[in-house]
């Protein structure tokens, strides 16, 4: 699984990245977590709310997420 956190480096985006890393560790998921801070690349995903969560090239969630929501999205 390839997980990407889209965000330009604001507080909410950093928080989401940390949450995702924790969840991946906790659930022992086989996933690579990366951050995408380049605005031009971010806009290719057609999102208007940041941060956003991308799994295997697909936007699965937008906005601030709690750890529980991240778990739900990643285990779906």
């Amino acid at each position, binding site marked *: 699984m390839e997980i990407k956190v889209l*965000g*330009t*480096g*604001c507080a*909410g*985006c950093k928080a989401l990245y940390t949450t995702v890393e924790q969840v991946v560790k906790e659930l022992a998921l086989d996933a690579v977590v990366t951050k995408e801070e380049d*605005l*031009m690349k*971010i*806009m290719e995903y*057609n*999102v*208007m*709310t*940041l941060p956003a969560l991308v799994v295997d090239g697909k936007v699965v969630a937008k906005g*601030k997420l*709690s750890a529980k*929501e991240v778990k739900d999205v990643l285990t779906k």
Partner: protein
Amino acid sequence: MIQRFADWLVYDIFGLDASTALGEAINFFFYDTIKILILLFFISVIMGIINAYFPIERLRNYLTSRKLYGLQYFFAALFGAITPFCSCSSIPLFIGFVKGGIPLGVTFAYLITSPLVNEVAVAMFIGTFGLRITSIYVISGILLGMVGGFILGKMKLEPYLSDWVKQIQQNSTSDSGTWEKEHTPFFRRLPIIMQEAWGIVKGVLLYILIGIGIGAFMHGYVPEGFFEQYMSKDNWFAVPLSVVLAVPMYANAAGIVPVIEVFVTKGIPIGTALAFMMAVVGLSLPEATLLKKVMTWRLIGIFFGLITLFIIVLGYLYNIVL
């Protein structure tokens, strides 16, 4: 009720004298802090609920899919007012609008109102200035977005967008129906909305405390009418001066409003104060540097210059009417 609690706490428990400057300042501090925190929490919850049902993607689809005969400026500004403003989302939003083929003027209408009318500013205004001044502020904010957006739209500023935005604009499609309806029931959403509202309150708490602290100190120690001698209504340059000073400032609305309230009670005309706050909240240097990614400096200059001018005009108008 809050006033009674503050009285009880400060005069009965702390044993301070209500007639002293210290007693009055501390009472003011507790009363305003409690009142504003409660207001901020509730307004954030209400805005959170509205947003859960009107996500920005929905607005974009609405604006691109219908002929609105000029009303689109109103909708864009109105949505700017009810959506929470986060500087980290302003650029993706801008691009998202351009990508959807929404005209630049309408995008500007959103961009002007969004930071100006936000939950923190509204809560602070109701808490310190009351409903009447708050409505004037909110309505002016929306009107400013509409008029500003309309004029900026008429000025044909597209050539001053940065190159990659121009490319996006050329490839724009109104077919952006990626917005999917969420089916989470209301009662399951509410805890998340409350959590977010609490997050907003926590985020600005420090600024509120500092702002009200300074306000309380001035409230207790600065004599009535003290500023009148420096900034009376007859002083024609007071409005432009305070607006121009305010534009580069990036004071959180939470910190600045309580201080301004005291300025007003001590003799600054309300119109000058309102114009000052619109400029502080609506325009800032960090915003300008963010916009640099999508606009040339020239366009940012035109945008900021025009809005500054409008806020100055509004300031004079308030001073005449209010």
